[in-house]
């Protein structure tokens, strides 16, 4: 080892002012760096998020080319700009500006973690028109077929979601049944080997639809087919 006595600057204890000055300067420098990066990436990130959202919404509402954001909570359906919090709902319009359908978020507990999805609903046929899995950590090879299994996705091409006579809830709750036992148009045929994950999808859609659809139809009839 080296025999020279090593003199550390810090053996003279610096004043607290010096410590605060150094910390302050470093914090300012990092703040500056962060603001620069943030300003640079923010437009790109916003654009990317918008595109991803549009792609998802247009996938579940066939024929839609433009969207408007709303939130739904127990008091009703509100424009997203109103500052209300709740479930995200998107209205999809076609090129002529007519409402084709809505897309709403749903979430339920799956096998490994929550399954979050977006489903499309058409007020004209009173049915679900498509789903897209937004987030899932289901078991690879089994539960992750939710997003890719064609026979399973075919369930959602025209899944019955009629409201009851009072318009207060779904006439028939959407429910997932064991693989191969689907009999009614409001039932979802589970993926064989991934029943828990498939059930989560049914539950997510049902919960969300029970909340959103009555408000949607009330608003549509109040405003003569417009949102």
């Amino acid at each position, binding site marked *: 080892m080296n025999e020279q006595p090593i003199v550390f600057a810090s053996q003279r204890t610096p004043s607290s002012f010096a410590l605060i000055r150094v910390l302050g300067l470093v914090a300012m420098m*990092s*703040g500056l760096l*962060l*603001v620069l*990066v*943030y300003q640079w990436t923010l437009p790109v990130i916003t654009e990317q998020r918008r595109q991803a959202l549009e792609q998802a919404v247009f996938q579940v509402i066939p024929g839609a080319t433009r969207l408007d954001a709303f939130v739904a909570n127990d008091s009703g359906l509100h424009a997203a700009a109103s500052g209300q919090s709740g*479930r995200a709902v998107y209205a999809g319009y076609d090129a002529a500006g007519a409402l084709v359908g809505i897309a709403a978020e749903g*979430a*339920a*507990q*799956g*096998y*490994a*973690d*929550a399954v*979050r999805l977006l489903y499309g609903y058409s007020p004209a046929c009173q049915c679900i028109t498509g789903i897209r899995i937004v987030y899932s*950590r289901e*078991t690879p090879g089994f539960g992750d077929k939710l997003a890719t299994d064609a026979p399973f996705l075919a369930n959602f091409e025209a899944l019955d979601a009629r409201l009851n006579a009072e318009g207060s809830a779904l006439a028939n709750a959407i429910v997932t049944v064991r693989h191969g036992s689907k009999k009614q148009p409001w039932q979802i045929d589970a993926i064989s080997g991934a029943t*828990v*994950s498939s*059930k*989560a999808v049914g539950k997510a859609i049902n*919960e969300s639809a029970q909340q959103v659809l009555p408000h949607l139809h009330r608003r549509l009839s109040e405003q003569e087919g417009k949102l």
Partner: protein
Amino acid sequence: MQGESLTFVFLNAAIINNFVLAMFLGICPFLGVSGKLKTSSSMGAATTLVMFISSVSAYGLNVLLANFEIEFLRLISYIAVIASAVQLVEMSMKKFSPPLFRALGIFLPLITTNCAILGVALFQTAKEYDFYQAMVYSLGAGAGFTLALVLMAGLREKLELSTVPRIAQGAGMSLMLAGILSLAFMGFAGLGG
């Protein structure tokens, strides 16, 4: 996120997605400290306490940051809050409960660099948990961490009595054991469904 019951949030953090065995957070203390049953339960308790405090502060901090629209400072402020939370816990424990401090004190500095703590803060933000969910989530995460640590310590105490091939002594064997534990925990998946 809406619609997750508190029971489920707890189960999810503690067992289904156990912080150590499924999310791989806090592996360093898991491999380093889990030699003895007693130390590992103390370590677990100290970690749970710090997790709870940081989770509550992180929730408040996140509301504050969102208010001022300066979310890009989130990571820096979370780290600062966790480091100060650890310091605070250490100081108040020293003052008000010296026996507890003697039992847990040496683990506290170690906890600052435990990624499970920052993990709780970051995951609760990413999952958009509300205040109660966040609180329960941190308790669940702490319970899961303690459980994994204690299980591992039990296995290791047994392992000391058996003959292990020379190359497998140390980290290699511990990781294999952790893998088997993790495999067992996968059986809990589907509990909430």
